[in-house]
C-alpha cells in the first residue's frame, strides 16, 4: 500500500497570487491539492492548509489586516486549534500574525524596497520545541541550509522583547536568513528582520509561517529545491491526520 495522499487546502483570498503555485507544488510533492475560497467556511476536508503568498486585499491598510477577517479564517483558526497543520507563506505568514495564530508582525523592509531574490535560510528548529526528532515530522536538522526565494516588501519580522525571548527560548524560531555558508549576519539579512528571523512556529508546533516561498523551490527545472523539505513537513503532518 502506498502512503495515503493527503489533501492540502490552499486558501484563495482576493489578491492571493501564489495560490496556484502552492497548489501545483503540493501536487508535485504527491498531495491532492484542494482549492479553498476565502468566503466559504469549508476547508474542503483538507488535512492541512496553506495560506499562500500574494497581496490579499492589495496589502492595503496593513498586510493581512483585511484577509484575516475572512470566513475561511474562522475555520483555519478552529482547524489550527484542533492541531491541524497550517503553513503561511509570505502574505499567508502576515495573515497568520494579524489573526494572532502566530506571534509578532511583519513590517516594511528596512531597505524600503520590495526584494525578490534567491537566498539561503538556515533551519533553526525543524520542529517546534527545540528537540530534534529524525522522523518525517521535522523539516531538517539544526543548521541545515535551504536555498529558497523571497519576494516581499514587508517581511521584517518584529515582536516585543518578551515574545522574542519566548520564541528563542521555546525553540520556535524555525528559520533564519543566512549566508550561503550558513553564517547569520546583518549582511545576509534581506529585510532587517529581528535576529534574522525568516519563519516561526506557534506554541503547539502545528502552525508555521515564513516569508520565503517554498512553493517556488520544488521544481528542479526552475532552480534549487530548498522548498521541498518544508512542504514535506506539511505533507507528513497532514498524512498523520489521515484516518488509516
Amino acid at each position, binding site marked *: 500500500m502506498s502512503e495515503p495522499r493527503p489533501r492540502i487546502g490552499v486558501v484563495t483570498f482576493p489578491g492571493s497570487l501564489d495560490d496556484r503555485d502552492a497548489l501545483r507544488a503540493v501536487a508535485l510533492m504527491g498531495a491532492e491539492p484542494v482549492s479553498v475560497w476565502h468566503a466559504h467556511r469549508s476547508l474542503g476536508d483538507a488535512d492541512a492548509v496553506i495560506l499562500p503568498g500574494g497581496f490579499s486585499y492589495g496589502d492595503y*491598510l496593513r498586510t493581512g489586516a483585511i484577509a484575516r477577517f475572512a470566513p475561511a479564517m474562522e475555520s483555519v483558526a478552529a482547524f489550527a486549534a484542533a492541531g491541524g497543520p497550517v503553513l503561511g507563506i509570505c502574505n499567508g505568514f502576515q495573515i497568520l500574525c494579524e489573526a494572532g495564530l502566530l506571534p509578532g508582525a511583519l*513590517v516594511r523592509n528596512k531597505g524600503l524596497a520590495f526584494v525578490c531574490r534567491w537566498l539561503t535560510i538556515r533551519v533553526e528548529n525543524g520542529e517546534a520545541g527545540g528537540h530534534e526528532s529524525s522522523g518525517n515530522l521535522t523539516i531538517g536538522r539544526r543548521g541545515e541550509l535551504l536555498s529558497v526565494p523571497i519576494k516581499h516588501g514587508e517581511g521584517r519580522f518584529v515582536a516585543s522583547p518578551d515574545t522574542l525571548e519566548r520564541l528563542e527560548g521555546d525553540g520556535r524560531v524555525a528559520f533564519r536568513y543566512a549566508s550561503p555558508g550558513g553564517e547569520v549576519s546583518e549582511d545576509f539579512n534581506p529585510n532587517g528582520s529581528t535576529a534574522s528571523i525568516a519563519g516561526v512556529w506557534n506554541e503547539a508546533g502545528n502552525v508555521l509561517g515564513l516569508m520565503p516561498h517554498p512553493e517556488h523551490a520544488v521544481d528542479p527545472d526552475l532552480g534549487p529545491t530548498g522548498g521541498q523539505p518544508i512542504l514535506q513537513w506539511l505533507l507528513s503532518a497532514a498524512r498523520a491526520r489521515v484516518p488509516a
Partner: protein
Amino acid sequence: MSYRVVVGVRLKEGLLDPQGKAVEAALPSLGWTNVSGVRVGKEIELELDAPDEAAARAQVVEMSERFLSNPVIETFEILRVSEIMALSQSNQKAT
C-alpha cells in the same frame, strides 16, 4: 449626526521606522538641519454617523483597536473629531 474623524496610526516607539529615517536623512541636504525624530505613520480619515461626538469617538477607538491599527506594532491617536453639517446648512455654523 455625522462626524469626520482623523486618526493617526504610528509605529510603536522603539520600532525602527526606515521611512522616517530616510526622510530625516534627506532633509539636511535640502537645507533643514534643525529637524529630528521624524516618524512616518498613517493618517486615516473617515466619516461616520453617531448620536453624539463621544459616541463617534468611542466607535473610532474601537475600530482603531480592532482593525485600523495592529497593537503589536502600532499605536493610534484620534487627532480630530468634527461634526459634518448637513448639506442644506453647509454655510451655517453649528449651534
